[in-house]
């Protein structure tokens, strides 16, 4: 359960924020809050592709498509099951 959220959360804390101890809540805004800045979005998309085999298009890298770990996990699961 929540494996996707945890994996991506840990990635963001360690690689994007460079604060490995920082816990990210599953409903915490990532993009609209500026927590994940635009320079890190490509890295996040590449990480997701490598880890979960799901491609996110560059037009989807915005808060309208996903803004929290929960929303991101839903998006990934819906594409994996296809």
């Amino acid at each position, binding site marked *: 359960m929540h494996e996707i959220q945890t994996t991506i959360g840990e990635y963001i804390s360690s690689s994007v924020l*460079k604060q490995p101890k920082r816990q990210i809540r599953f409903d915490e805004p990532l*993009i*609209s*809050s*500026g*927590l994940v*800045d*635009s*320079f890190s*979005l*490509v*890295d996040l998309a*590449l990480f997701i592709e490598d880890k979960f085999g799901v491609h996110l*298009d*560059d*037009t989807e*890298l*915005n*808060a309208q498509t996903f803004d929290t770990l929960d929303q991101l996990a839903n998006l990934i699961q819906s594409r994996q099951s296809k």
Partner: protein
Amino acid sequence: MTTLSERLQSLHARIPERVAVYLQHSGKPDLPIAYRQLMCGANAYALTYQREGIRAGEVVILILQHGEDLIYSFWGAILHGAIPSIMPFLTEKLSPERYRADLSALISVTKPAAVVTYPEFENDVREALKGSDSVRSVIVTNKLASQSDPDFENISGMRRLPNDIVLLQHSSGTTGLQKGVALSHQAVFNQLDAYSRALNLDDNDVIVSWLPLYHDMGLIAGFLMPILSGVPLVLSSPFDWVRAPYRLLQSVSEYKGTLSWLPNFAYNFCAQKIRDRSLEGVDLSSWRAVINCSEPVRWESHQAFYERFKSYGLKLNALQTSYAMAENVFGVTQSDLSRPPQVEEIDREAFMSERVARLALDDRPAMKMMSSGKPLSNTRVRVLDEHGKGVAQRVIGELALQSDCMLTGYYNRADATKKAFLGGWYLTGDFGYVSNGEVFVTGRKKDMIIVGGKNIYPQDLESLTYEVPGVHAGRSVAFGIFDEAAGTEDVVIIAEVDSEDPAQQEEIAEAIRRHVTKNSAIALRYVKVVGPKWILKTSSGKIARSANKEKFLKELDAENK
């Protein structure tokens, strides 16, 4: 002697069907805009400015995103003889309140007669206008006059004079927005003539750019120069580029692009974040210059970019440099496009303690410096000591310049204009040295932080930090530290609080991160909350940014050991 409107008239007459701009949007087909269409779209705005009673010589602020409206409203202002100034558009991570405050700051100094924006944004603009009486009209993009060919004989832009102000450029943040660089028609053309010569710009060139138009590099090199020279421009946006950096390379390949300008970090960004599958069939052999400008230039960044893309036809000679600033319209120097920029190793100790760039002997600790090229034919560069006296070759001092394309002044800021000059020389605030005519930029006198090509005033970030509960005014310091991997600076904020409790300090750090990012749209890499008496001050009680930076770096080093 000529003006921008006269140039537009001649382009409209000479090459109406040639494409001026290929406008790109992620997920949509490219939109080619020929000169005739460009003038028709611009004329809709010119007629709208006239309808709204805007007079020639009055300032119009454009608050629009990348797209046709931004392009047409800009050239429409030129046709009408009004003075356009492009303000960055609100981003989703910036709080609307702060954006309005920045806009109010801009308006209070610039006193524009009109603001152009989208209908959805009209209320925010009107909110920011409260308490100011200069703006007579908020023009929304869905209530324009219809498009038609301009009647060049009668438009008011044709009656502007070469020495009249043609546009304003601002840098970002509360501080930057209060200093609009005012440029004349003549200054713009003098710059374009000298800069085009340095590039050997001609009809076969194609410029590919994603740079924002509110910044000099994007506005001049990536917008005005191609359009006014009849050179096609392939124009994308920073918003799209940062999400799909490979598209820059695909566009160069597709349109046989010859020239691009990039801030230093973009070389690292492209080298690190583009996968091979996005480069299938890409051919970069048409790219004759990719010019590194607006951040300190790094040989390592060029090297990484070249290694990553050389198998796609990228030429080593294509990697070039320039030193530029809005106050000189754009370019101050340009490297010689026929060979790679000069790179040399200087003695680190002599640089630090004697302020001299002496070539390093084999066994001495050295640092690599890359030249930004020689001054343009119309620009002279001098290096001055702290008393304003010229220094010898290879001695480090403040770069000062003189040219026939200098700013008319900071708009409505005679005080700031006066302070910027010394004996007829413009003081750049940058440190550097000259050797055999080549200009090497070594750092900044001002405390400005440059992240991803964007200038950030540390005092803006410090004031925001004081707004966070638990932080007292005067007890925060902001600065940039160089990030080798990213090729640009990381922003650091240190705040002193009364509490020594780590949990409470962590909470305040988190609050600072949120508040500063929300109000400046700048991501912070390090936020360090410390107990009393950490921050170093000068004897007069002022915060010494460089001393605090050194202390921070020492502690960071110790932690990483």
